C-alpha cells in the first residue's frame, strides 16, 4: 500500500501537484494515510481551532466543538448548526427563476426554461462565498446533500473510534 508525503497532499488540494504524480496516485492503490494527511492539510489553513471531522464541500466542514456538539462550519468561521440538519436552511439563498436572472450567467440560448428548472444558489452569511448550487424543478424541496454516519465511517473505514 503506497504512502505519500503530506506535501504531496497539500499540493493536490492546491491543484499544484504535477499531472504525472497525480496520474500515478490515481492509478495506484489508495494510500493508507491519505485521510489523515488530508484533514491535517485542511486544518492548518482554517483560522479556527475546532477539530475537522469530515469535509463537506470546498468551504464547509463538519467540526467538533469544545462542548462536544458536531456542527457544519464554513472556513470563515460561520456555523450552520448540527450536521444532522440540512445546513442550507441557515444559508442565504438566491433563486434564479426568471429568464432575466438566468441570462446573467447563461446568456442567449444556453439557459434552461425557468418553468421547468430553477437554480438555487446558497451563500455563506459570514463571508458571502457561494457554497452550493442546486438545479431543480420549481417547488422541489431543498436537497439534503449528505448525511454521513460519522461513527461507522471512523470505526469501519479508519479503524478507530470517533
Amino acid at each position, binding site marked *: 500500500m503506497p504512502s505519500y508525503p503530506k506535501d504531496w497532499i497539500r499540493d493536490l488540494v492546491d491543484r499544484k501537484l504535477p499531472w504525472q504524480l497525480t496520474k500515478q496516485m*490515481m492509478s495506484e492503490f489508495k494510500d493508507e494515510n491519505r485521510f489523515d494527511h488530508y484533514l491535517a492539510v485542511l486544518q492548518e489553513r482554517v483560522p479556527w481551532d475546532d477539530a475537522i471531522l469530515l469535509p463537506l464541500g470546498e468551504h464547509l466542514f463538519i467540526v467538533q466543538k469544545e462542548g462536544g456538539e458536531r456542527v457544519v462550519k464554513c472556513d470563515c468561521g460561520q456555523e450552520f448548526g448540527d450536521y444532522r440538519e440540512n445546513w442550507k436552511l441557515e444559508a442565504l439563498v438566491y433563486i434564479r427563476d426568471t429568464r432575466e436572472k438566468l441570462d446573467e450567467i447563461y446568456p442567449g440560448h444556453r439557459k434552461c426554461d425557468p418553468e421547468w428548472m430553477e437554480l438555487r444558489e446558497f451563500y455563506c452569511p459570514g463571508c458571502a462565498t457561494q457554497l452550493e448550487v442546486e438545479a431543480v424543478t420549481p417547488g422541489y424541496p431543498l436537497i439534503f446533500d449528505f448525511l454521513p454516519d460519522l461513527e461507522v465511517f471512523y470505526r469501519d473505514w479508519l479503524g478507530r473510534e470517533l
Partner: protein
Amino acid sequence: MSTRKPLVLGIDAGGTMTDTFIVDESGGFVVGKAATTPADESIGLIEAAQDASDYWDVPFDDTFRELEVTLYSGTTMLNTLLQRRGKRLGLITTRGIEDDVLMGRGVQTWAGYSYSDRIHAVTHVHPQPLLQRRMVFGVTERVDAAGETVIPLYEDEVRDAVEVLVGDEAEAIVIHFLFSFLNQENEKRAEQIVLEELERHGLRDSVPVYVGSELRPVIRENSRLNAALIEAYAAGWVRGQLQNIESAIQTRGFRYPLQTVLAYGGLCNIRHPRLHETFISGPVGGVMGARYVSQLTGMKNIIVTDLGGTSFDIASITDGYVPVEPEPTLARFKLNLPTIAMESIGNGCGSLVKVDPVTRKFQIGPESAGSDPGPVCFGRGGEQVTVTDCNLVLGYLNPDYFLGGKVRLDVEGAERAVREQLTDVIGIDLHEGAEAVLRLMEREAQAAIRSLASTRGLDTSDYYLFGYGGAGPMHLAGYSAGMDFSGVITFPFAAAFSAFGCTTADYQHRYARTVALAIPNDASDAAKADVCAAINSSWAEMEIQAKEELLREVEGEVRFTPLAMIRYGGQLSDLEHVSRFSRLEGPRDLEGLIDDWEDLYARINSRVAKYEKAGYQIFELGMLVTVEKVKPRQVPHELGSPEPAADARKSSRRMYYRGEWVDASTWEMDLIQPGNRIPGPAIIEHPATTLIVPPQQSVESDEWGFLWLK
C-alpha cells in the same frame, strides 16, 4: 587467437537492457548484454558489444574495425518525445483548423494506458502538444477533397506569420494544409514564401522548414499533422544522439555510417529524411527475425512472443505475411505510419508485484523496476518485488550465473522482500506465493496470446510458437501450457533475438501516395485501363523518389516491391497487398492483382468474408524499395546423438515446481548440439537467459540449433 571475422553488429537498446548480437561470415553469432544507460546510450551499447566480443576472444579493438554493418534500434527516439526535449516549433496551417494540435484525437487521451486506467475516465488527458497554441498560425487558402484549389493562398498572411514566428524564436517551421496530399500547390508556394522570409532574416540555414505533403502524403489529417510535427520536433535531436553513437563506434574503428530500423521492418541510414519512421523500432526486430527463420525453415505460420523486462509483446506471421498496423500510436500520438502490428501488455520480468489491499490478490505491473534500480535481487537499491525476484526464490535463476556471473543475485534479499511485501501480507507460504506470482504472469501472457489469436482469427494449432526475449525461455513452458501449437520453439540467442532480427533485415524505404480509384464489379475494360494507368504512374513516381533517396544512403542493386492497399467498395479500412506485377500492362493484370488480393483477404478474414459484388476501391498505393545487405548465413547441421556431450552438463539444482521441490539437471545452453535431447526437469543456462524444462517435458535441438520444447 580466433579466426572469427565479425560482420554485422545488431544493437537493441531496450528500456532495461541493451542487447548486442554479432554475426560472423559463416552465420556464427554471439550475444552480449549490458544495462541500458539512458543518459548516454553509447556507454551501455559499447559495454554490451564488448560483452559479446569477449565470448569470441576477438580483441575488442578489432571488432569494430572488421564490422561491415552496425545497426541500432532503441528507445532514444521515443524518450525524446516523452521528455519533450525537441525543437521550438511554429506551425502554419489552413485557417480554421489551428486548434487541431490541441484537440487531437479522443483515442490519444488514453493511448498506452493500462486496462484499469482506460476504464477510469478521470485519468484520461490529452497529451501535451508538441508546440504552443500561440505558435500556430492559420492562413487563408483551401484545397477541397477532390484536390481542386477553391481558395488561393493569401500570401501576405504567410509573410505575417513568419514575421511573428521569427520574433518568437521558432526553431523549425511546419507547413500543413488541408488536403495537401491531393494538391501540393498552396503548400509549396507557402514553403517558398517562408524560405524567402527566413532568408531575409538570415535564418534560412538555421530554421528548417517541413512540408506536410512531402513528409507523408497520405490521407487522414490529424495523423498526417502529427507525423510532420514529430519529425520537425524530434528528428534533429535524435539524429544528434545517433550521430553521437556513430562517432563513439567510429572512434573505435568502425568504417561505415550507423544504420537504424524502420517501423515497417528494414534498415535505413540515420540521415534518412523521415527519421520519425524509425521511432517505433523496438519490437520490430523480433518479428523480422521470426520472418527470416520462417523463410529459412519453411515454418509459414508463427506466433512470436517476446518476454523482456518491461513488457510482453506478441505478433503473428501468417503464410509468411506480417500484418501491418496502418495507424499506430507513438508517445500517445496517432500517426499514419505503417508499422508491424504488435500487441503488448505491461507484464515482464521486471514488472513490480503488489498485493491489492482490497481484493488481497497479487497484481503484476504495469510499472517496471527497469534496469536502475532494478529488481530487489540486483542489490542496487530496488525495494519493490519483481517477477525476477520470485524466479530467484524458486531456484529457476542461478544467482551466480546472471549475465554470465556479472551480476550476483541476492537470494536472501529477494526472499525477505517477497515475504514482507507479498506472502506474509496474505498469510501463505513463501514458495507457494512466489510460484503463484509466476503462474499469474504466465496466465496473463497466455490470455494475451489467446486474445490475439481470436481477434486475428488464427487457429493456434496451425502455428508455431516462438518464445524469446531475456525472460522468454524461462516462462515459455508456462505460458504455452494447455494450448495447442504446431511446435513450441526458442533459440540459444533468445535474449538478443530482436537484435538478431535486425541483422537479418535489408536496407529499405517505404513510400505511399493517396489516390481515389474505384473498380466496380462490372467495370469495362476501358475503365480498368484507366485505373491501370493511374496506378502505374503513381508507382513510377514513387520509384523515382525512392531510387534517389535510397542510393544517397547505400550502394547496391535496388529492388522495387509495389504495394496496393485495396478494400471492397464501402469498406472503412483496407488491406495492404504486395503486387506481383511491377506494372499493370492491361485489364488482365488488374484482375490478377485483385484476385491475389482477394486470396489474401480470404486467408486473413476467412473465405466467406469475400464480397465481390461490392466492387473494389483503392485509396492508397505504396512502394517498398530494398537494397540487400550482408546477412548471417545460417546453415543446417547434421543431427547428432540425442545424448548431449558430457561437458554440456553442469550439475543439478532444486527448483520449486507445482508445489514441490524437484531436482533439475542443469546444462550449458551453448554446448547443446543439434540432435541432443534433454528430459525435464532441467534448467538450461545461458549467460543471458535461462530455459526451464518442467518435469514430463523435454527439449530437443533441431538441425538449426533451435530448441523445441516438447
